[in-house]
């Protein structure tokens, strides 16, 4: 009950007019940051961090976390409208969101994305409110082996649950792993595959690859198909929003599953990106209309968005209670906490009650404010699609180039983005799925690092991946996911022979 009293006190703090004003400013800035590819939540928060030094810590964190929510919302907009994910975790949203926009349903897609984001975040905040101390101690059980098992599960569920030919999926994934291997080998401290080119020290940045593969690749495809957006003439108004809302409760099962996946991935600091991919992969296999995924199924938007937001929100929990950021943006927020003189860690919940509960209350209110802000803007966003392609395409190109440049302030990256654009176009023409490639670039080096850390600790024994209940369970789940098709087939054959 003490938690509830604390929470109400937190609401009182968050509801002060000054803080509400900061909330709305934060959300709006965040949406803008989320829409611009490459700028991203982490950079946005980092740039705006010094603005908050003169504010009281609670107000400052309310504004910064609202920028974070805003960026999470905003990432979905360009993914759906232009197939350009503004944030890593919105890649999976493009798979069905973009086809929906092309079929003249951008309003439905945006509404579904925003609403499920809200649901995911709300679920995660409620979880944080209720079980914060418990979850923190659970996260402590995650060593390298457990982390590798989580990544393994993400990869396996993608290969096994995908409807694409498994070998094409694996081939695309392997290209991704090879790209992820370039740069500094974090275990030996040596440079790998850079061939003395200093620009490659950093490896291939995920964002550059994604902007090229999806954004530029898509423009090339559209040019080939006759310079027009399909379905740009849809009319969007409040009716569309309400109608989509009526449909959404029907997908409660997918939502709940995605919420759980998201919370879990956010707390075990795997983050929002694998959460969105895994949630999409599982929904594709388990949904009734799973065969339609990738062709503009609303459930294919709900699943990744819900999970990404649940994970993005849950990622703040390990940051506050352990001092370990679950996402790059959380890492910058962590820096902010230290500057305001707050020491994140187990004592924060005890010593800084007003701050912690003010933040948690602002998560409820900030997400609600965010939903209202973005939903009222849906018609404006969707109207962008009515602009002729001849005008919008150069604008998108410029936006992509700025995005790619701003990741490391380097023109080399802009070249790289164009190269990735051509690769993306070729892969699409040959019907290779891009998603596994992207997944492997994002998680490849993290998975490698966790794998090698585990083996260092176990002195080379693979038994470490089955050394306790937690890690064995996750690994077993991964193997089941990998061979899901074979298992299903075997099961139905067994039933046939029984009958």
């Amino acid at each position: 009950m003490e938690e509830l009293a604390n929470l109400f006190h937190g609401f009182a703090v968050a509801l002060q007019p000054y803080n509400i004003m900061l909330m709305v400013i934060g959300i709006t800035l965040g949406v803008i940051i989320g829409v611009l590819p490459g700028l991203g939540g982490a950079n946005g928060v980092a740039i705006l961090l010094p603005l908050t030094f003169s504010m009281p810590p609670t107000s400052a964190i309310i504004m910064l976390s609202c920028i974070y929510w805003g960026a999470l919302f905003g990432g979905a907009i360009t993914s759906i409208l232009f197939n350009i994910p503004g944030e890593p975790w919105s890649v999976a949203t493009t798979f069905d969101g973009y086809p929906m926009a092309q079929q003249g349903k951008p309003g439905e897609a945006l509404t579904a994305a925003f609403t499920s984001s809200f649901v995911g975040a709300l679920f995660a905040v409620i979880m944080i409110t209720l079980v914060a101390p418990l979850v923190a101690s659970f996260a402590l059980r995650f060593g390298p082996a457990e982390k590798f098992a989580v990544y393994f599960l993400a990869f396996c569920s993608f290969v096994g649950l995908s409807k694409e030919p498994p070998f094409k999926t694996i081939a695309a994934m392997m290209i991704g792993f090879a790209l992820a291997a370039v740069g500094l080998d974090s275990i030996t401290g040596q440079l790998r595959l850079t061939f003395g080119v200093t620009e490659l020290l950093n490896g291939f940045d995920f964002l550059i690859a994604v902007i090229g593969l999806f954004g530029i690749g898509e423009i090339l495809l559209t040019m080939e198909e006759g310079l027009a957006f399909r379905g740009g003439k849809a009319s969007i108004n409040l009716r569309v929003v309400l109608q989509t809302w009526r449909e959404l409760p029907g997908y409660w099962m997918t939502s709940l599953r995605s919420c759980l996946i998201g919370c879990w991935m956010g707390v075990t600091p795997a983050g929002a990106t694998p959460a969105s991919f895994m949630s999409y992969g599982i929904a594709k296999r388990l949904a009734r209309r799973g065969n339609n995924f990738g062709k503009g199924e609303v459930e294919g938007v709900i699943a990744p968005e819900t999970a990404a937001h649940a994970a993005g929100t849950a990622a703040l929990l390990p940051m506050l209670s352990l001092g370990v950021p679950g996402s790059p943006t959380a890492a910058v927020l962590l820096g902010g906490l230290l500057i305001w003189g707050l020491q994140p860690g187990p004592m924060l919940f005890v010593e800084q009650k007003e701050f912690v509960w003010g933040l948690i209350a602002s998560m409820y209110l900030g997400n609600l404010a965010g939903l209202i802000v973005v939903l009222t803007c849906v018609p404006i966003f969707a109207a962008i699609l009515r602009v002729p392609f001849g005008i919008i395409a150069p604008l998108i190109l410029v936006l992509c180039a700025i995005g790619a440049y701003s990741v490391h302030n380097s023109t080399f990256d802009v070249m790289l983005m164009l190269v990735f654009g051509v690769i993306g176009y070729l892969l699409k023409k040959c019907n290779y799925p891009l998603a596994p490639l992207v997944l492997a670039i994002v998680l490849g080096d993290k998975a490698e690092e966790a794998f090698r850390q585990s083996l260092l600790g176990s002195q080379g024994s693979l038994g470490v991946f089955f050394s306790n209940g937690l890690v064995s369970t996750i690994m077993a789940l991964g193997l089941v996911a990998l061979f899901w098709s074979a298992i299903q087939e075997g099961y139905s054959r067994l039933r046939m022979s029984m009958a």
Partner: protein
Amino acid sequence: MKPFVLNVALAAMVMSCASSTASRAAWEPVRPVEFIVPAGTGGGADQMARTIQGIVTKHNLMKQPLVVINKAGGAGGEGFLDVKTSANNPHKIIITLSNLFTTPLATGIPFNWKDLTPVAMLALDEFVLWVNAEKPYSSVKDYIDAAKKAPSGSFKMGGTGSKQEDQIITVGIEKAIDAKFTYIPYKGGGEVAVQLVGNHVDSTVNNPIEAVAQWRGGKLRPLCVFDAQPMAYDEPIADGKAWKDIPTCKSQGLAMEYLMLRGIFMSPKATKDQVEYYVELFKKVRATPEWQDFMKSGAFNTTFLTGADYAKWIEAEEKRHQDLMKEAGFLASN
């Protein structure tokens, strides 16, 4: 072509005006200053850079904005090469950590600190030997005994990065007590501390600021500090113990000393006036209460050096890193 020529002419005029004022009065930045961090967001160097940025903004210490940019690629090599190739651009400064020495030595990238212009040493970061509070060893002696008794290689030391400061200290400890550890590299110091709380490693050499929260929460225990004297801060942190109460490793029979540079460099070919401007700036930063709070929260060693003293210190430290890394077999093989 014409407008372009005009622009160039205009730019040249503006520049000559700027430089003529500079030669009369002391130099001052005429556009935003880039503050490069050769490490990722959230780490020790990043926190320090962002604190400085906050102090400069809050106290209006500069007329032009100071912009923090992370260039972490290749263990910081990306940041160092960026500043190295910005000769004659006085609007670029960089904060360094030990990777100033370790990264070029371990990877063989074409960089040496002499490529940059030294500005000032802001502080030195301490290293402390930490163990999980549940573990029975409460003194360095217990720890050494346990490490020696464990089968060779089964005692796990967690640290930040590979062939960087944490691993150098680990090799030093191994030599000093004649035991074999397994060193496991992680991405960041906070993660390392949490891995120790979760008992996934047996000990760490975290900087104070990375592990202080876990110490206060009663999860970790400090055994000794790798400095010649105990730290200066006597405010109690946990169990009535202060940073000051942590003995030096040497006094406990573990002969290893290591401090990490938190210093500022600027781009090559900077003039004396330009260096002087930044030295004065950082003197002002150091005088603010925010900076002193920050030093206290991280239990930093607040040695401040500039000019020839600073260069001499770096030179000696470079030599030391070369020797330490050669002994450990960490030098790039090319």
